């Protein structure tokens, strides 16, 4: 069984983010980049399944040259090889153009199952994996918190999160796209052996032509949605910040809670 895992390299949102002077996006120069959180869980799910079934994982990403680092990490964790949609034409797409490009890349590798994260931590459309499924004509599930392959290997059981703390149990026929939530498993750490082995594993760069795609149909050119700019959220009144050292601030807060808000 050949399993595709689609990942994205994103800025570490725990780090300090600065809006660029022109307001179009954030300063990326000194920013640490990591594998998107839910994609790490997708990788673990795919690699664990490949180990169990004797299959292989092919990892895919759309991203500039720096994204090769994320692919190398995926290879160190146990993926067999990587496909990098690194061509400039693929970059800065929206969910539609990126999902379509990934679908073409996955179809070319003849995978029968795709794992990916439910949402990216940067643009957070939560839609790319679903577009990918639709473009392939495959069923999918989003916000998946449990996965197992059924006997015979032609269908899988999926636990999908619903709202209000409920889960839906599903059977989905393969091929399918499974969009996982963070928390579905416990992602492994790369071993030294894995890191060494990854150095010899192939990362293949593909361009639009390799996938039979018109460069104007992918990336920013093929996107329907354009990003105009980013800004800090408008503080809805905002919190009254209590200044001073922890003891001073804590005393002031308790006073406010007792005498102003009257909640304790």
């Amino acid at each position: 069984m050949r399993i595709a895992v689609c990942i994205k390299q994103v800025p570490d949102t725990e780090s300090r983010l600065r809006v660029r002077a022109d307001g179009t996006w954030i300063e990326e120069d000194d920013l640490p980049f990591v594998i998107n959180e839910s994609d790490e869980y997708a990788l673990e799910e795919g690699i664990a399944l490949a180990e169990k079934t004797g299959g292989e994982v092919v990892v895919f990403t759309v991203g500039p040259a720096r994204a090769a680092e994320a692919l190398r990490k995926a290879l160190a964790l146990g993926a067999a090889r990587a496909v990098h949609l690194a061509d400039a034409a693929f970059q800065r797409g929206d969910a539609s153009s990126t999902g379509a490009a990934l679908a073409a890349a996955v179809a070319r590798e003849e995978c029968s199952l795709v794992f990916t994260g439910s949402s990216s931590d940067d643009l957070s459309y939560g839609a790319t994996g679903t577009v990918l499924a639709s473009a392939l004509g495959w069923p999918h599930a989003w916000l998946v918190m449990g996965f197992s392959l059924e006997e015979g290997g032609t269908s899988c059981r999926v636990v999908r999160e619903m709202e209000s703390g409920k889960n839906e149990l599903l059977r989905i026929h393969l091929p399918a796209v499974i969009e996982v939530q963070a928390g579905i498993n416990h992602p492994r750490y790369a071993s030294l052996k894995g890191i060494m082995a990854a150095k010899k594993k192939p990362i293949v760069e593909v361009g639009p032509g390799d996938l039979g795609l018109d460069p104007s149909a992918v990336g920013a050119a093929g996107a329907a949605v354009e990003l105009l700019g980013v800004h800090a959220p408008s503080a809805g009144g905002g919190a009254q910040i209590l200044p001073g050292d922890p003891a001073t601030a804590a005393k002031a807060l308790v006073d406010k809670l007792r005498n102003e808000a009257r909640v304790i």
Partner: protein
Amino acid sequence: MATAKVWAILQQRDGELHRQSRETVAAAQELATLVGGTVDAVLLGSGIAPLAATLAGQWAVERVLHADHAALATYTPGAYATALAPAIREEAPAYVLFPHTYQSVEYFPRVAQQVGGAIVSAVGSFRLADGAIQWTRPVLGGKLQADVRVKATSGGATLASIQPGAVSADRLRAGSGVAAALPTTALDSWKPDREILGVESAAKEEVDLSKADIIVAAGRGVGGADKMGVIQALAEALGAEIGASRPVIDNGWLPRDRQIGSSGQTVAPKLYVAAGISGAIQHLVGMKGASCIVAINKDPNAPIFAIARYGIVGDLHEVLPALTAAVKEAKG
């Protein structure tokens, strides 16, 4: 140019409208006012024609369109997309608004892919700018907001999901329209590719946080299961229940029945102390109904401060013990 149609997709289960359905109709009415368009509400399901007729008598909409078919009795993304995509191709609405729910966001990108429409999810607000609708939505974990626009050259419909509370249901204008059936012939040959086996509770034991008066909630900033003591001590001093944001649960620092947010519990205590929680939208929807929110975070730009009444910027491992001591002292 023909008048732009704005569609509001309603979400229902067993004939009960999801609470965000009315907000979505209100959003569609406001959007239609901006673009000079008309509003249609759209209801998918089985045996929902009477509900569509009732709603058509209540709301200021042109039509309540309903796709009524046995294949839509229970939601699956494949059947819903198969019902909606041909309707969008036929009727050519300029905008199709969905409630931003786990259900809608699971299937609407599939519809968009099938009709060549643009995808804009998690919309918090929208406005008219330079003759086009500009959508504002959170990015980078809610630390920033992005303004996006659908290119004039894109041609297709814009499919957007509207966050809970973005437009209040109180703004829904009453009036009346007509109910009209959408064709469902595409569903006659629809072969289900996803079978529902059951529904279960996500948490093993049920802790009901919705009745708690005071909640102390832990976030990623706590840093580990072995560091939860500061949370516990403050909760004990306040007589509070302990809750958490999603990363705390995913990391196994607390059991899942303590999760607050869109995939956990919705709470409305009189006091909510958020410690080490940055304030991603998924968490905020579960607790913004609290009467008094206190935020403690080392990042002064954390979005949680925008909705909190009081805030302390600092390391929670220093602030919480000080706060626990101050509470004990005040309570004598």
